[in-house]
Structure formats: C-alpha cells, structure tokens
C-alpha cells in the first residue's frame, strides 16, 4: 500500500497537477465537515485530515477512501443599466481605445457561475508503528479539469467578457488538490502533523513572428515546476471525548508568467523590432489560514466548533495585484447524533463573512457574505463481524449568498484611467485635443467609461454541493 501511495504521489507530481484555490476550505474536506458546514476539522482521522487537520490522522486507524462531489448554483450578478452619455466615443484616429459601440460582447450579468465536480481519493498507512501515519490525498475535478480562468476586475474586462463574475466562487474552486503528509502521536493525548500541497508554477516564453495580419507563427518555450505549501497542526485530547486542534495552512496559488518576443513584418529597422511583452497571471489564490477546532463527543452524539481566520489582506487577483480585501473570522458549528441501525445524522451552520469591501470604485470584485447550512447522513457497515469498518456518507451543503448591492461613487474630480487610480476613471482623457484646431475635443469631455460594473450591480443567490464518500478502515 505504501508503495502504491508513493507511486501515485510521484506520478501526480511529475505530471504537474496543480493544487490551487480551495474547494476543500470553502465547503469542507470530508463528508463530516461538509455536512457540519465546515465545523469538525479535528474530527476525521482518515486521509481527508491531510487538509482538515493532519495531526488528527495519528488518532485514527489505517484507511483508504474515495468519494464524489458536485456543485450546483444560482449565484447571480445583475448589472445596473448604464446611464446615457458615458460610452467611450468614436474619435476616429484620435480614439484612445476601441469605441464602446465595437465591443465584442454586449454587457451582461450572469445567472450562475462555474460549477465544480470532483473525485476524492486517498489513504493512510502506519509507518513502523501505529503512532506514525503517512497519507496521500487527491481531489481531482472531473469536469473543468485544470481550469485556468483569468479576468480583469476593472474597466479592461469590457474588452473580454464585458461582464462580472464571482471572485471567490466558480472556476476558482475547480482545481486539483494533491497533498501528502505525516502525523505523529507523540503522547496519548497529543499529536503533531504536517502535510504539503503541491502546486504548479509555469514559465512560458513565446516567440511570435507575424508576417501579416492573418498569419502568426508561435514558438513556445515553457517549463512547469512544482512547489509546496505547508499545512501543520497540533491536536490534543485533554479529556476523554474532547479534542482540540490548531491548524495552520499557508497561502497557495498558481503563477503563470513569461515573456513574449514578437517580430512584426514592417517594423524592422525600428526599436519595436522585436517587441517584448511581459505576462504574469496569478490563479486561485488562497490566503493563509489559522483554524481553531474543537469537538466534544459522547456515546451517541457530538458537537463541534471551528473558527477560521483568513489573511485575505494578502490576496492577489489574477493580475498579481493586491485586491484590498480584509482579513476575516469565520465561525462554524455542527453536531451529529447516532440515530440507530448504524446511521448517523449530522448538520451544521457556518457564517462566511466576505473579505471584499464594497466595490464603489474602479474594481469589481464580487463576493457576498454567506450563510451556510450543511446536512449529512452516514451509515456504518460491518464486515466479517467486525464493527465500524466500512462507512458510506452522503452530504450536502447550501451556501446562501446574502444579497448585496453596490453603487459606484461619483469621483470628484474624476481622473484619467492609469495605474494607481482607485475611483471610476475616464477612459477618454478630457485634454485630448484636435491637432487641427488645437482645441479640446467636445466628444472627449466628461466622464467616459465602459467599466462593466458601472454604475452599479447587485449579487446574491446560492451555491450548493452534494456528494458521497466511502471509507474503509482496515
């Protein structure tokens, strides 16, 4: 088993499967945690503890498991109608950008965002002694595998989707998670654990040759490398039935960067031959987290309480810019009860405060407070007369996104769009002059913006997941 786990781990790393964003954090790492709305990090001792609380593995038995989850949502964004007179005009050869009438896509809201469908797989084994366990866990999306979606969160997005999308939901959650770790039960009541999440970084340099407008030739020189983000935890059992843990998860993200060297026919002999353009994209940024988790259980019931602190203030958006989010505390609580015949019913509640401040300026990060309800049902099966060897768990979780409306503030005075400007900005500078007359162009006067979030938007709806997990403790 150890050899198999090791080989699978190596294969996954060698093939550069990325681990980024956090479906496990957003919903929970296992059936118990999802059904208790994120509470109970300390409870599970199988392979899912590699994410939830690595040290708790040391308190459990060897196990393997697999599972499946799928999300569904109606996470809507509605855009306010644009007032008239703000469209970037067609100034012919003087237009500083493509006129608004020529956008490829009409400005539009969304009725839902991307879903995630994924498989869990993993296991734990003893190493020499029952007090030391190693484990491997993979969460792999079935659809949207390896999704790499980026967007702009300001007026530039008008040239792409010309829409808004959720910053912390959607495709960001549809990413592979690969982790391996070890847990040591140092004392009967104390265990230490650590795991690593493997992530991919890519450096992609391109050389392009463009002999004419219709033809481009590319040469790609890319290399992918992996790096790791740590998870560490301490679990204590101060009293029978009472467990406490502190879990630290380091920040993680995937970065794709490189340089493009472009040769355009006709520019030879100028300093623009060749042109060099830098590219840097950050995908699926998850901030540092510290989670305090505690649980208390009696024979037929148990309760759990988690509080997660997340350092959203370091969050970087797709362009590698600090987004100006604030740190949050997210509490969750859950309970379970054995209802007989090997069935266990669980449920929980969590509040996820949004780290995203009101987007009254230039940026359009969309996120809402979420009220989370979880539900689950677990069934134990006996094998060969032994008790509690195989379990099947069904789970569901609904995240209700608190309605939110945003109105852009009227900037006074408004500024021309350039790096560092925070407010809604003017894409057609007022001081643009007609070289014939030397006078300012009347059509350039006033604020002109095609920012998709202008003059406001509202967001809300819900995001749900459901799934099934099977575990075998041997």
């Amino acid at each position, binding site marked *: 088993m150890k050899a198999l786990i090791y080989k699978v781990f190596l294969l996954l790393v060698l093939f550069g499967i990325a681990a980024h964003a956090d479906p496990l954090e957003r919903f929970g790492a296992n059936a118990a945690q999802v059904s208790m709305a994120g509470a109970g990090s300390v409870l599970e001792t199988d392979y899912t503890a590699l994410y939830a609380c690595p040290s708790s593995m040391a308190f459990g038995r060897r196990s393997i498991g697999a599972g499946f989850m799928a999300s569904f949502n109606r996470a*809507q*964004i*509605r*855009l*306010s*109608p644009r*007032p*008239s*007179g*703000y469209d970037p*005009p067609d*100034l*012919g*050869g*003087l*237009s*500083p950008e*493509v006129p608004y009438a020529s956008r490829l896509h009409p400005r539009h809201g969304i009725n839902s965002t991307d879903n995630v469908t994924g498989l869990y797989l993993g296991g734990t084994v003893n190493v020499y002694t029952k007090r030391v366990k190693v484990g491997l866990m993979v969460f792999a999306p079935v659809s949207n595998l390896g999704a790499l979606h980026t967007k702009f969160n300001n007026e530039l997005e008008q040239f792409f989707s010309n829409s808004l999308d959720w910053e912390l939901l959607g495709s960001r959650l549809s990413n592979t998670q690969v982790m391996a770790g070890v847990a040591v039960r140092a004392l009967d009541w104390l265990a230490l654990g650590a795991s690593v999440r493997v992530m991919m970084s890519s450096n992609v340099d391109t050389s392009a040759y463009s*002999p*004419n*407008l*219709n*033809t481009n030739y590319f040469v790609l020189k890319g290399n992918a490398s992996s790096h790791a983000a740590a998870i560490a935890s301490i679990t204590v059992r101060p009293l029978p039935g009472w467990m406490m843990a502190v879990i630290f998860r380091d920040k993680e993200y995937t970065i794709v960067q490189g340089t493009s060297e472009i040769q355009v*026919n*006709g*520019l030879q*002999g*100028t*300093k*623009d031959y060749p042109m060099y353009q830098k590219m840097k994209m950050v995908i699926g940024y998850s901030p540092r987290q510290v989670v305090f988790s505690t649980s208390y259980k009696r024979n037929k019931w148990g309760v759990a309480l988690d509080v997660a602190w997340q350092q959203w203030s370091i969050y970087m958006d797709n362009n590698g810019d600090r987004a100006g989010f604030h740190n949050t505390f997210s509490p969750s609580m859950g309970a379970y009860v054995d209802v007989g015949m090997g069935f266990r019913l669980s449920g929980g509640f969590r509040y996820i405060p949004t780290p995203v401040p009101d987007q009254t300026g230039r940026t359009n990060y969309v996120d809402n407070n979420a*009220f989370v*309800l979880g539900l689950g049902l677990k069934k134990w099966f006996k094998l060969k007369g032994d008790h509690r060897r195989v379990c099947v768990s069904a789970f569901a979780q*609904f995240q*209700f*996104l*608190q*309605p939110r*409306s945003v*109105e*852009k503030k*009227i900037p006074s005075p408004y500024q021309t769009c350039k790096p560092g400007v925070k407010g809604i900005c003017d894409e057609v500078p007022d001081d*643009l002059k*007609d*070289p*014939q*007359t*030397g006078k300012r*162009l009347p*059509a350039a*006067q*006033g*604020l002109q913006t095609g920012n998709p979030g*202008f*003059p*406001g938007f*509202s*967001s*809300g*709806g*819900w995001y749900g997941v459901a799934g099934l997990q099977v575990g075998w403790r041997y």
Partner: protein
Amino acid sequence: MRGWAAVFACLAVACSVPAPPAGRFADQDVVVAGNGSDATADSGTKEGTGSLHVDGTWAFLNVTSDCEFVLGKAFEVLSYSVGLDKFQSTDGYAFKQVLTTCTMKETPLLGQASIYSQDMIDSLNPHTVYALVNGHEAGAVYIQAPDPSLWGLVMKDPFTDPIPTKKTDSRIRDTDHDGHPGVTIHVGNLCDVYLVQRSVTRSKGTVESAISIRASNIAHADVFRIGATKDICMSQNVDVPMPAYSYLVLKRVDGHDGSPDLDDNRDGRIDCAEIMAHWQDIFTMPRKDDKHCKDISAH
C-alpha cells in the same frame, strides 16, 4: 421537516438577488464625435438648370483613395479635403481656379489617421490651378491641368525636380512654422511625423449641371520622411493609388444659377467658416470600403 422547509424557503427568498441599483450617475449630454469618422451626409443641393457660367464661388470636395498595406493586408484609406474654389474665366472656356483648403481629413487605418494642423493647411493656401471646359451644357468635358502641390518644400520645377532624400536638403522648409522641418503630420495620438511631399494630381470629368462638376482624379505623391517622434512612425506603409475611387466634386455655392448661397453673414464673400458649416449638406461623402482593395490584396 416542515420547519426545515420553512427555513430553506425563507433563506431562498431572502437570498434572491435584488434589482441592481439605478446608480448615482445622471445622464450626460452626448456629443457626437465629428473627427475622423467616415461621416455620411446627404446632398441637399438642388441641381441647377441651364448653362454653365463658371465665374463665381464654388466649393470643392477632393477625395483620394489609396490602398495601404499593413502586415500584408490592404486597407482603403480615403484622404479628403474641402474648401473654397473661386473660378475666374478668361474666355468662358479656360479659367483659373484659386483654391482655399478649409479642412483636410483622412479615414483611420487600424485606428490611426493622419491629422493635419490648421497651420499646415494654411501653408497650402491659396493655391491656383488652371482648367478647361469644352462646352457649357451638361456633359461637357472638364479638364484640369496637372497640379503640383508641395508640402514643406520649394522646387524650381515641381514636376521634374527630385524629392529630397536627406534632412539637410536646402529645399526643405518649415512651412507650417512649428519649429520642425517640413510639415508636421499628427498620426492619431501615436506620434508626429515630419515630412515633405510633392504630389501631382490630374483631374478629368464632366459638367453635370450649371452648378456641379464631377471629375476623377489620378494623383501621385513622393514623400520623404524627415523624422518622427517615434521610430515606429518612420516606416511607411506600401500604398497603391486607387483612381477608380478618387474624385473631385465642385459645387457652386454663391446663389447663382440656382445654387445655394452660403454667404450666411451677408458680407458679400464666402469664407471657410461658412463652407465648414454647410459642407456636409452639399456633398455626399463615400464610406471607405476595404473591398475596393480586394483585387490588390489578392496579389
């Protein structure tokens, strides 16, 4: 069970997305852009009847079509000028035309168009050409003598002297008086180009009515780029003149023979301000059409 259903229903309703806010921004007055677009205007001129009496004030629209190659693909670029044309006949058939160009424009190519400052346009004014008609009725032939036009340049023989090839050529002049040699052409908001140009235009057409003459143009231009504010503007696109889509239209505008009278301020003379106020009512501007360059692109 009912309780849970109620909770879910309540939350589902509570989480329904509200209508987006109206926003705090009031409507702005829309100013229609008038620069560089392919404006189309309907001709409001009522065609005159009777014979041509050339003496008087006319307005002209001169359109030159070129197919310019950028990155291997050809695009049509229309350069057009609008102005005053005072006809002075010697014998009723031969006459002198004193032209005053009021504006010069160019349609954008990949979002950038040449823009001519008023000082540069003024440096071309006034300009004299000679022409002939072989009759005064509709259908009579109109021929203009080959017309050389020099930008930022003096030449002893504007037809045969070679175009300068060095910045130090003594024939180069700062005719638009902006401190840069030659004339300055603003290429959109991308850069300024300093150049000299010699163009020779030949026009031949017909008298359409007592107040309208239309001719086709064949123009050839030699250009020397002296410098530019950006290197990228020193490279010149390959361009091919398109005589089939180049033309000259003359419209009488002094109120005689049924023509419109553009002397708005009744001072007895028509000036550029009055021409510019009405030119889009007088002339119909064609839109550029890259299909005109299709045959050329195929080569």
